[in-house]
């Protein structure tokens, strides 16, 4: 159901290992590459804005890409204008990104801003592309609690993937060495955020205390020893099974559980 001349670009960033902080391929970006590879095969283009000498980029090449385009910029630069001007003329039908970077601010705003500036629709949490025809794509969107929603989107569009997308394949050493990193010279724009903001090591969040607002010792005692609070619930006794089932059914419909 997928046309063969599909033009897909995946945007990738440098990730960081959650405990050691070592540079690696970013987990979600690798999933975006995986999805792109499944859709477009080796015609997939992969794009990165940053330092072309970064060794971690080779982990993406190891997934079976022959080359990776890098828009060269220093680490404090703003990637958005570069990507925007590149994508404007790239003629892509689908741009895939992860939903949040593992380094830097990680606000997850990039796909949203790109979509706004390019005037393209944006799909969040893409899980699967079912078919593409007549300038429309039919996709599955991942929702919390393992649910899926089917959407129809106009091409071209941007989609970000999260952990519901297919797991990324292993990165192999040989292809990672053989792949080409193509650097493009572009004008650099500085990021304005870092003027007034600063990073600090993550502080563990304070655990929320259970505050008991009791005036008397007796109330405190009651709060500390309380069992499951009785009452409040509706109890149907001595009813026929049909009437009981009807009540349950009504509640399920009310909660939207029966689809």
């Amino acid at each position, binding site marked *: 159901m997928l046309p063969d001349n599909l033009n897909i670009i995946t945007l990738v960033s440098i990730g960081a290992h959650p405990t050691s902080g070592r540079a690696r391929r970013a987990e979600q970006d690798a999933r975006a590459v995986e999805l792109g590879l499944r859709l477009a095969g080796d015609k997939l283009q992969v794009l990165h804005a940053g330092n072309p000498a970064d060794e971690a980029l080779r982990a993406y090449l190891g997934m079976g890409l022959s080359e990776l385009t890098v828009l060269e910029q220093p680490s404090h630069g703003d990637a958005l204008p570069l990507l925007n001007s590149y994508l404007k003329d790239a003629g892509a039908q689908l741009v895939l990104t992860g939903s949040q970077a593992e380094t830097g601010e990680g606000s997850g705003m990039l796909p949203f801003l790109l979509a706004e500036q390019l005037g393209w629709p944006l799909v969040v949490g893409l899980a699967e592309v079912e078919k593409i025809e007549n300038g429309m794509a039919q996709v599955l969107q991942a929702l919390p609690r393992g649910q899926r929603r089917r959407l129809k989107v106009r091409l071209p569009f941007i989609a970000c993937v999260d952990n519901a997308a297919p797991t990324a394949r292993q990165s192999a050493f040989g292809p990672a060495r053989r792949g080409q990193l193509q650097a493009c010279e572009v004008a650099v724009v500085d990021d304005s955020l870092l003027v007034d903001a600063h990073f600090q090591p993550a502080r563990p969040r304070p655990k929320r205390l259970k505050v008991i607002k009791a005036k008397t010792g007796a109330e405190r005692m009651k709060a500390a020893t309380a069992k499951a609070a009785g009452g409040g619930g509706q109890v149907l006794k001595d009813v026929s099974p049909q009437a009981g089932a009807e009540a349950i059914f009504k509640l399920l419909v009310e*909660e939207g559980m029966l689809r």
Partner: protein
Amino acid sequence: MSDIIRRDPRAEWIARNRLHPLHAAMQTAQTSWMGPNGIVRKNPHVVGFIGPNGLKRIDRSGAQQGGSGKRATASAVVQLPLHVIEQPAFYIAVVPDMIGGRLSSHDKDLLGLANKLAGSDGAVVAVVFGEHKETAFDTAGVDRLLQIEGELFEGYAPEQRVLALSAVESQLAPRHWLLPDSRTGGGELGRRLAAKLGERPATRVWQVAEGQCIGRAGAGREDLVRSAPRLILAAVECAEPVSDTRHEVRQVELLDQIARNLPRIEDLGAVAVDPALIPMAEAEFILSGGNGVKDWTQFHQAAAALGATEGASRVAVDDGFMPRNRQVGATGTWVTARVYMAVGISGAIQHLQGIGACDKVIAINLDPGCDMIKRADLSVIGDSAAILAALIERVTAYRQGGARDAA
């Protein structure tokens, strides 16, 4: 409670014992209070009573206060003080997720944060799309409620919702926009709004204090500290929820028409997923069976008919009716379902721990006194097999009726 007046020796004893914590509650009328200058005032006239000979008597035995009269059956519900903002100096806009039409705990935390930012001059306005089932907007801290209805906003319509929010922006110009940074909608809507308004949001914020906000950055190894921007996407437990005021929940209307756009994303509806493949901890609807389930084939049929993920109590697992990975409770999975249906489960504390985060609990049990009934929002007393059979029948009829309506 019967109408017979009885002496309550214990209550008399409490009324006599001025050191008892409940002593004050047992006094009939107010005899002492704090005066305007901070001096305790006493009214000697209300102490005691007029005896049969017209003489005033003071009874220190406690029989008067403690035992006399019928005790009030229900303790009066405390009315929290009403927080009124007549002319708000500014607005703080909150767009709650409203999962299932109600405020989630994340939403309530967010409203708590909004009230902190609003102080005593600002008003918190909650923007709610479509119908809701929430009855406690007042105690959650909503000063103004703006409901946006219409079929355009139903289902998944993020682009249209952003247009509505920009209309709110131009009408109220809120000082801050607060959205939950959640996967259930708030995170996406907030980022879309940020892109639309051209604001750089602070995301995954977990603390806002003195104009500074702290949010997680990157993969969570660093925090980003910055001055609080207009748009804040806050994480869970970003602030304490409102607990000791009541708010007006005054309705506000949007004056302008909301711009319409041609939807570029069309919602084709939810896709049926196999409930057995959903991890139990995430499942939205769980049908759980315990020792009271006798017919397990029927139980599986019921789960299939309802489209529910299956769970079990430890006894059902130990007896070999269900696999170990389906056990709910302290030693099994801690579930977060929105609806948890417990069939023939007595509600041992180890089991109840596992369903602490569930929203609505339905119990089917033979024993009206068991602990699961106390936890449940709806309990049906009766034999599980008969009720499940009736339920399967009812749901099947509904499904077929629905299919006929659609055709």
